[in-house]
C-alpha cells in the first residue's frame, strides 16, 4: 500500500508540474487527421484558425505588443496601456480592427462567447489578415534582430528562427477555397512555408 501511495503521489506531482491548462479558444475547430507525426515548434509560431469561413489569429505572446504597436501606427488607431496589456493576455482573436477596442474592454471569459467574434476580414476589399500577419512577422523579426545585435543568438540561429512561423489550423469541413485564399495571402508576402495543424491517425484508412 505504501509503495502504491508513493507512486500515485509521484505521478500526481508530475502531472501537476507539467500541466498547462487548455487555453480556451474563441473558435474551436475539428482539425483533419494525418499520419505525419511532426510536432509543431513550441515557440515562434503564429496560428491562423479557419472555421465556418471565419478567420482567427493567434500571435505568440512575445510578439503581441510589438504587433499591436505596429498596427496602431500604420492604421492610426491609438491604444491605451491597459488595452496593450489586455491584448498581450489575449490568446487568439477574430474581430475587425474597428471592433478590437470593444473586445479588449471585455473580461477574458466573455471574449470567448461563440457569437461575439466574427473573424478577421480577409476578402480582397478589406484584407486585414494581411496586415496582421505582416505586422506580426515584423514584430517577431524585430525581437530577433535585437537578440542578434546583442549577441544572444548567432546568425545561424537567426536564419532559423528570425521569421515567424505560420500554422494553419483549419476545420476539416472547411471549403478548400477558404484555405486557398489564406495560403494566397501568405504567399503574397513571400511566406511559402507553413504548417498545417492536424490530428493523428494511422495509415489504415
Amino acid at each position, binding site marked *: 500500500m505504501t509503495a502504491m501511495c508513493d507512486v500515485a503521489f509521484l505521478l500526481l506531482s508530475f502531472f501537476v508540474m507539467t500541466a498547462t491548462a487548455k487555453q480556451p479558444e474563441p473558435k474551436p475547430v475539428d482539425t483533419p487527421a494525418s499520419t*505525419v507525426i*511532426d*510536432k509543431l515548434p513550441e515557440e515562434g509560431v503564429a496560428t491562423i484558425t479557419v472555421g465556418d469561413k471565419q478567420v482567427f489569429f493567434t500571435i505568440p505572446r512575445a510578439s503581441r505588443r510589438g504587433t499591436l504597436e505596429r498596427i496602431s501606427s500604420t492604421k492610426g488607431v491609438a491604444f491605451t496601456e491597459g488595452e496593450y496589456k489586455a491584448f498581450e493576455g489575449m490568446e487568439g482573436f477574430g474581430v475587425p480592427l474597428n471592433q478590437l477596442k470593444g473586445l479588449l474592454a471585455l473580461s477574458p471569459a466573455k471574449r470567448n462567447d461563440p457569437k461575439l467574434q466574427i473573424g478577421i476580414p480577409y476578402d480582397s476589399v478589406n484584407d486585414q489578415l494581411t496586415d496582421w500577419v505582416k505586422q506580426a512577422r515584423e514584430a517577431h523579426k524585430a525581437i530577433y534582430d535585437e537578440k542578434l545585435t546583442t549577441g544572444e543568438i548567432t546568425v545561424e540561429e537567426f536564419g532559423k528562427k528570425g521569421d515567424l512561423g505560420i*500554422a494553419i489550423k483549419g476545420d476539416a469541413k472547411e471549403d478548400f*477555397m477558404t484555405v486557398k485564399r489564406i495560403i494566397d495571402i501568405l504567399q503574397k508576402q513571400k511566406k511559402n512555408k507553413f504548417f498545417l495543424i492536424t490530428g493523428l491517425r494511422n*495509415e489504415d484508412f
Partner: protein
Amino acid sequence: MAELNTGGGGGDGKKVRSKKSNPGVDLTAMVDLAFLLITFFMLTTTLSKPQSMPLAMPDKDVEKPKPEDITAIPEDRMMTILIGKDNRILWYMGMLKTPRMQPTEAKFGKEGVRKDIIKNTAYAKQHKTKPDDGLIVNIKASDAASYRNLVDILDEMAINKVQLYAIGDITPEEITLLKDKGLY
C-alpha cells in the same frame, strides 16, 4: 475503514501487557484521492503539442522566370490529381490533352488512390533518366473540395513518399473534365 488499532483497552487485570503498537495506517482513501487527481490532470493536460504537417508552396514569382530556368517535367512521370466534390478524385498521367493514362476516378484511402499512386510510382520508375527519379504529383483541388481532402491527399504523398509534389491551380479545361465525369 480508517482505524488505528491501539491495542486492547481496559484489560481484565490479570497481566499488564505492553500495548501492541500497530503503525499501519489505512491509506485506501488517500490513494483513492491521489488517483482521482492523477486522472483529472491526465485528462486536462495537453501533454502533446499539436501535430503539424509542414507544407512548402512553390514561390509565386511576380516576374516570369527566365527560359533557361524552366525545367521541362517529363510527362511519363507526372501525375495530376484533381479533387472534385463528395471526396472523389480524378487522376491522369501526363498532359491533359495527350494523357499517358486516361483520367481515372478514385476514392480516398488505402484501397483507392493509394493503390493508384503506388502503381504510377512504379510506372514512373520505368521512365526514369536518373536513378533517384520518381513520381511527380500535381495536386489541383476544385472549389467543391474540402480542406480535409487536401490534407488527405497530402497525407497520401507522405505515406507513399512521393518524390516531388505541388499544389497547383485548377484550369478551366480540368473543371470541364470534372463536370463531364460528374465530379463537380
